[in-house]
């Protein structure tokens, strides 16, 4: 960020303390709203959740402006984002977290029709694939994401390996992909929804059962 821009942001903090300066409040919303949303999306919230939390942060942080001390270090922008980080941490605390194993993260009730959820899943897969080795990523991409997904025989031909080796390599790559997906905050929340108290039926039982 340029010096002029940083100075402008710092001045915004002073302006927000003047309750007659409506334009300062609007500027605060314009500058930080979209950035909050990007931050929250990167922390695994869906688009609508990120927008709701961004709006909530605009109000809550603006109301705390009297507590901002310029000499505290880091400047206004850093102070604002520290509060936004706290907000998203609080948001995640609403959900019970426990590690899920490769076999048990059953999601038979996953609502595949929800576009927003599908987008989160796509992004989670995309991010997790990037963490695999090139060889593992390649075999999954050939099998799952080619224009026309390949058979193991075709993968073997393409990679110059036996069909059986292609199959084994694919399944080993999936076993490496799975924990990466389970660690991904975007997907983590969707998968754990089946274990959340809200997903329980009137008899206090989970509406879905983990696979054995």
């Amino acid at each position, binding site marked *: 960020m340029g010096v002029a821009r940083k100075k402008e942001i710092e001045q915004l903090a002073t302006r927000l303390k003047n309750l007659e300066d409506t334009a300062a409040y609007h500027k605060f*919303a314009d500058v930080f709203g979209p950035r909050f949303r990007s931050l929250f999306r990167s922390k695994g919230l869906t688009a609508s959740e990120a927008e709701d939390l961004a709006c909530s942060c605009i109000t809550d942080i603006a109301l705390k402006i009297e507590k901002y001390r310029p000499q505290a270090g880091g400047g206004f922008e850093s102070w604002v984002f520290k509060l936004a980080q706290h907000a998203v941490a609080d948001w995640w605390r609403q959900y019970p977290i426990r590690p899920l194993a*490769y076999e048990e993260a059953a999601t038979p009730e996953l609502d595949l029709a929800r576009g927003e959820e599908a987008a989160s899943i*796509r992004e989670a897969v995309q991010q997790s694939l990037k963490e695999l080795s090139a060889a593992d990523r390649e075999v999954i991409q050939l099998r799952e994401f080619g224009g026309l997904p390949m058979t193991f025989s075709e993968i073997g031909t393409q990679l110059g390996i036996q069909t059986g080796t292609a199959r084994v390599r694919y399944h080993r790559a999936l076993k490496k992909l799975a924990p990466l997906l389970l660690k991904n905050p975007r997907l983590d929340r969707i998968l754990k929804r089946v274990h959340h108290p809200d997903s329980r039926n009137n008899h206090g039982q989970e509406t879905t059962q983990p696979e054995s």
Partner: protein
Amino acid sequence: MDKKRLNQNPEDQVPTWLRQVLDIAKSSATAIGASVGEEPASAAFRQKCRQAADAALSIARLRRERQRIGFVPISLREYVHGLFLAAELQASPVLRWLGVDDPTDLDSASIKDWARLAREIGMELRETLIHARIGKVVGQGYAPFPMLFAQRSPGLRQRPIEVCEAILRQIESEFSPQVREEFQGLDREIREGYGAC
């Protein structure tokens, strides 16, 4: 052949959740490999951000007005309405922030919403409870509370808030168990609005 082998070897079974996740991702294969760019902010979202800022400004102004006015022995409804009027503010930005269904009608807010607002504008829980209890007493056939307050306050060295509590204790001791139960419900809702439950 491959499918048959998959079924034969348990190690080759792909868990249902992973199969679903891959199928969803596959359903939009063009998205895979594309970077997750920053989504442009829609006009609707920008508008919501500005409304959120308007809510902050209104609450901050209410807070300032409340500091100027201080405690007045009237009901919570009268007090909050009065603050909006004294500060010359529209209620809608604040009601939207509270998540009230009808942001044009201050009275459509629940007691819990009002308590949340009271906390946000700097009213102590004790004071808010007194305002709410005064509101309940108003409906029980007593003289207007400011008159009861005026009757008791001359000559007393107590703070106004303590005078009000003394009056309320006396009045409430005459209530039936049913009315007392209503009061307890009110007390609980307000404490919930303050996050004190």
